[in-house]
């Protein structure tokens, strides 16, 4: 296997919307910019799947900014960072216009390119077409001279004297070692810990402060229905459900709330939950058809909303696996030379708090933080000299990368991934939490971390990728479980059966984590008092949503 050394001013890890924005903004400053992706940048990450919408705030539409932020804080249970909420709303129009100019696939209707605007809560959401926004971002990045490396798995950040000097990884195709030396590095590795992103794992391993709060994300759909994706798309415009006895379920007009209340109903023995197409009017059916046509026109599907029926729901939960803690609005992290954006910079939760508000509240915060991280990284790169990386560091990283492929036998990464999913995704671990079950899951995760991960075996570079994904996934699982245990209250999508109420003001705080000599240290970062809710308002009004058992 060969070794390739790439020297660049700014290195961006991850080619979704956050990474592309960062790369483009740094490149516009005239710098040498390299973007590296473990998939094919612009196509394979979560951005490509984000087809529900893009939040856009435009003051000319007559929406008051302050009342918009207040509503977000209330629904997000006062855990959002109001400064970030405001920045993201204010800058959303500009990033939207840039995406349009790059040819992103937004959907318009009528003359004058009027967007489809759907109002979820106070924020308008622009519909996205079948290609999503990723391919256009990639193309623009390439057009202006960003160097893109695809199918390269970054395994470690390079660090010397508390300064990040770039990153190392390998090619999924050739297995070649890649060393990227950079004056500034932007982490944009997505979220949710496994599957499409490695969250803040790279930052944590390098010693950065991160935050994780157990605010999990659920997206029950009808994915196992033949042609599942179109059915999931249709569900977002027609949310009506009945329980196991076909009794109508009342719910607030917010996807995540629907999803959680369905989980609680199943937990109470009232499942299965059905999507009640029988109650759709002809108008509902037209809206569903339009949604499918816009989103999945090329997908073969047997799903036809006009057929009616009651479709059993299957659920998916993805756990909050944290993001790098941003120390300023330039998206710098606690490590010099390292910036973070998108999910790996916790952007969505900074924006919206403890709940998922509306389709699109992932993309817009990712775009805005990517934009700012690119400018922040560029500014830093202008200020520092060329970097040199110590040979001992490279030797150590190289040994770590290739150890699983040099073994003659070992644990199978596919089996290990399955085991981690089996531990982390059951609803009674990820959504209906309790100290006993979190500790039980943590015991298993620690066992895998100590006994199985060090003995994983890869027969080729593709499998080596699976192994290094597990190294991130096991860390993210531990972060998620420890943060959930530490947060001894319920709030937003973090529900603890043993602590079923919000605790104000003690838990008007974020949970922060950091590696402390091999141990995970956790502490509270209080939310500024000026953002607290008004305690003279009774609890039930401050928090309109009830948890089971509170």
């Amino acid at each position, binding site marked *: 296997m060969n070794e390739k050394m790439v020297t660049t001013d700014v290195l961006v890890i991850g080619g979704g919307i956050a990474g592309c924005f960062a790369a483009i903004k740094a490149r516009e400053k005239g710098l040498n910019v390299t973007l590296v992706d473990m998939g*094919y940048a612009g196509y394979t990450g979560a951005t490509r799947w984000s087809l529900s919408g893009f939040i856009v705030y435009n003051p000319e539409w007559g929406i008051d900014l302050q009342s918009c932020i207040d509503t977000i804080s209330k629904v997000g249970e006062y855990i959002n960072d109001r400064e970030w909420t405001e920045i993201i709303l204010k800058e959303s129009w500009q990033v939207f216009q840039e995406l349009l100019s790059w040819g992103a696939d937004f959907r318009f209707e009528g003359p004058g390119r009027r967007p489809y605007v759907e109002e979820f809560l106070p924020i308008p959401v622009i519909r996205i077409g079948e290609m999503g926004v990723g391919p256009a971002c990639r193309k623009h990045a390439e057009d202006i001279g960003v160097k893109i490396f695809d199918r390269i798995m970054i395994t470690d950040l390079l660090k010397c004297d508390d300064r990040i000097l770039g990153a190392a990884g390998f090619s*999924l195709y050739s297995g070649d070692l890649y060393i990227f030396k950079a004056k500034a590095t932007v982490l944009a590795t997505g979220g949710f810990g496994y599957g499409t992103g490695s969250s803040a794992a790279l930052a944590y391993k390098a010693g950065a402060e991160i935050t994780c709060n157990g605010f999990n994300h659920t997206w029950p759909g009808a994915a196992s229905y033949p042609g599942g994706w179109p059915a999931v798309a249709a569900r977002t415009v027609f949310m009506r459900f009945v329980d196991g006895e076909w009794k109508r379920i009342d719910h607030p007009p917010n996807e995540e709330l629907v999803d959680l209340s369905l989980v609680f109903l199943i937990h109470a023995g009232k499942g299965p939950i059905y999507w009640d197409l029988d109650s759709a009017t002809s108008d509902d059916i037209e809206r569903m058809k339009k949604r499918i046509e816009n989103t999945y026109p090329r*997908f073969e599907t047997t799903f036809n909303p006009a057929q009616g029926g009651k479709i059993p729901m299957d659920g998916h939960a993805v756990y909050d696996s944290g993001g790098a803690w941003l120390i300023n609005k330039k998206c710098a992290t606690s490590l010099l030379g390292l910036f973070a954006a998108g999910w790996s910079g916790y952007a969505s939760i900074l924006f919206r708090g403890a709940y998922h508000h509306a389709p699109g509240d992932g993309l817009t915060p990712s775009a805005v933080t990517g934009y700012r991280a690119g400018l922040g990284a560029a500014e830093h790169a202008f200020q520092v000299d060329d970097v040199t990386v110590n040979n001992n560091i490279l030797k150590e990283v190289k040994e770590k990368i290739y150890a699983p492929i040099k073994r003659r036998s070992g644990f199978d990464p596919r089996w290990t991934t399955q085991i981690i999913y089996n531990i982390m995704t059951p609803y009674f671990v990820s959504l209906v939490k309790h100290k006993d079950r979190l500790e039980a899951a943590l015991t298993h995760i620690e066992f895998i971390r100590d006994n199985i991960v060090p003995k994983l075996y890869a027969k080729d570079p593709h499998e080596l990728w699976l192994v290094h994904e597990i190294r991130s996934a096991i860390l993210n699982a531990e972060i998620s479980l420890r943060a959930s245990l530490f947060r001894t209250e319920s709030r937003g999508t973090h529900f603890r059966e043993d602590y079923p109420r919000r605790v104000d003001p003690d838990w008007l705080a974020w949970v922060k984590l950091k590696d402390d000599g091999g141990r995970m240290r956790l502490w509270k970062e209080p939310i500024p008092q000026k953002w607290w809710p008004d305690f003279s308002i009774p609890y039930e009004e401050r928090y309109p949503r009830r948890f089971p058992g509170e």
Partner: protein
Amino acid sequence: MQNSWINPALCIGCGTCVKHCPRDVIRLDENSKKAVVKYPEDCINCQFCQAYCPQKAIKIKPTPKPQIVSWK
């Protein structure tokens, strides 16, 4: 590698499916210059390859996961 997901008579080797695959399941074969399903066991059934193939040459058949052993 022999596979029955991609029709080699229709495949023009454009690489669209390779680009779209989030799990590195499909590769372009260097000799035949056609797409091959190299890691079918990692397919997550997202269907992007099939949906965006300009030749309609792909019909994915993700099977139930094969028996996976812990140590190999």
